[in-house]
């Protein structure tokens, strides 16, 4: 079967600094996959390559068998990306923003309307969607962005630290939305996080990334038992050899 994401020996060199040093991994259809690692490990770099924003120095990245370097426009039709720091156009209301973004994915008014309806539901922002997005709190902005990412029903949703910097209630809401959405739409989700506990509850499978290398992969359950750890945090520390 064809993998939704397939990375082969991916290397990214930022002018002398190796951010990625040979990443190989694959994600199956319908999986919620977590890429976890400390700051500067190379999570964002990996996600940006898959999202066609930056180009790998060496190696290959395929989305549903399509090479991101050879056919980026084809890849963009399959994915939807939530950057770690994302904003909306400050002069638009939340609803106008969702409508504008939906219009890039759908030609027909019907398609746009359906996406907008889905976006409204996902955001859970209700009447506040009529207000300018510049008036939103950080948590609301993130909800709007998650709604924008998922409403277009992508084959692959790429979420870079979807809950970082949010309080418990917003983070909880977002996690629930992601889990629910993946289940009902059988969308493949690739997310990054440095919050190991969150990932443990959310992801079917995870990979530890450290200093540009994948150091361990498996389901949270497998990893914990393999390292005799109570949680993923402990497992990670054992893998990188600190604990």
């Amino acid at each position: 079967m064809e993998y939704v994401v397939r990375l082969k020996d991916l290397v990214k060199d930022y002018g002398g600094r190796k951010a990625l040093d040979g990443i190989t991994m694959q994600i199956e259809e319908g999986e919620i996959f977590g890429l976890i690692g400390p700051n500067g490990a190379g999570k964002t770099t990996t996600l940006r390559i898959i999202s066609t924003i930056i180009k790998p120095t060496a190696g290959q990245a395929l989305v549903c068998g399509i090479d991101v370097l050879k056919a980026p426009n084809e890849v963009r039709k399959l994915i939807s990306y939530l950057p770690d720091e994302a904003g909306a156009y400050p002069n638009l209301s939340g609803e106008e923003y969702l409508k504008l973004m939906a219009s890039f994915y759908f030609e027909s008014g019907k398609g746009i309307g359906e996406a907008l309806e889905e976006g409204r539901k996902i955001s859970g922002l209700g009447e506040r969607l009529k207000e300018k997005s510049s008036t939103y709190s950080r948590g609301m902005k993130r909800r709007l962005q998650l709604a924008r990412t998922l409403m277009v029903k992508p084959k692959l949703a790429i979420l870079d630290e979807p809950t970082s910097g949010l309080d418990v209630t917003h983070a909880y809401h977002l996690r629930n939305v992601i889990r629910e959405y993946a289940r009902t739409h059988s969308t493949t989700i690739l997310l990054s996080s440095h919050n190991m506990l969150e990932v443990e509850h959310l992801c079917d499978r995870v990979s530890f990334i450290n200093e540009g290398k994948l150091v361990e992969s498996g389901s949270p359950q497998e990893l914990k038992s393999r390292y005799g750890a109570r949680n993923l945090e402990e497992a990670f520390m054992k893998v990188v050899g600190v604990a």
Partner: protein
Amino acid sequence: MAKEVKDLLRDPKILVGMILFPALIYPLMGAAMSISTGSVIETASANMTIYMIDDDGGPLASTLKEFFRGGNFTVEAVEGDPASMAASLHGGDVLIHVPSGFSENITAYRRADIGIFVNFKEFSIVEFIKAGRAEGIVRIFEGAITNALISNAFPNAKAEDILNPVKIDYNSVIRGEAQPINPEVLQNTMRLQGAMGPIVILLVLILAMQVAATSIAVEKEAKTLETLLTIPVSRLSILFSKLIGSFTIAFLASVATVLSFSYYFTTVLGTAAVDQGLDLSVLGIGPSSTGFIVLGATLFGALLSALALALTLGTLAQDVRGAQSLVGVLMVPVIMPMFFIMFGDMSSLPAALQTALYLIPFTYPMLASQALFTGNYGTVFVGLAYMAAFTFVTLYLAAKVFSSERIMTARLSFRLGRIKR
């Protein structure tokens, strides 16, 4: 994309700066000019009081008074020390001091003194005009005296021929035809008409560059760029929608500028030129409608080049402030041609400088605004082709940057003057 244009038009800065301002500046200037011209003309013809200290009391002092009355002056006799007397008058008031011996000196063929005191309070144009009017009467009086003296001495000759034994017949050859025009008059008329064009061209160019240069930086700052780069829209369409957005604004701005400029030309300056007894269009060097179309075309071409350049370089800036300081740097090649062309003449510049100017696309609208009078369109047409090529190459570079990852990662640093990746 319509989104870009609507978004830009919603921005009041752009609407006012790029469309309203150029559309209104010339008519406003025209109105200001005709209002002040009106008050000047009024001053020049209105009845005016002249104060006179007559220490002479002779017949020629009386004649002088008659001359003033004939020139629509009311002569008010005063007495005392002329300087302190003049100091007590209003701004623009003129005091004439006729010293004793005035009449006697003139009749004895000796040069006679006369004092003119002008009280300046505001140094306004009205005060200067009043002073000039008073002196004018004295000069007419002097002319009459001269004629009388010459007629006395040479009863058979005309005074005019003795005073100016050589008469110059001025001819300005314009486009192969000799016209009886004093070059000085021609120069004054043309300078008056030519000076204002480049300044507004400059303003429109700088504003357009601001819009284009910041268009990507704005997305970077609002953190919308990263998302924009992953939507299923090709990078080229993103580039072109950014361009079309800025172009639409720039196009409206050039139309507004040219219409307003031609209005200013044909109405306000038209009458000013006629006042000087010189109608440029009769001479075949007045601005023609073809001239305005060519001016519009070069302005549009320069705008396209400016936008393409600003957009390309602006893409490399980290944030809006960086993009704005970039526009500051780009202003140098915009202003340079203006200075050289306004205050000099292309053909008299050193060859290297000429080449440099011809390589700057912004030179051509300036040349076109000159060509309105000179009819020298050859260079302008070459310039149009050059600007098209320049725009094309710049856009090619922009497309390169847009489809590379540099649009995300470039850090343009002006202090170091190099591009870090």
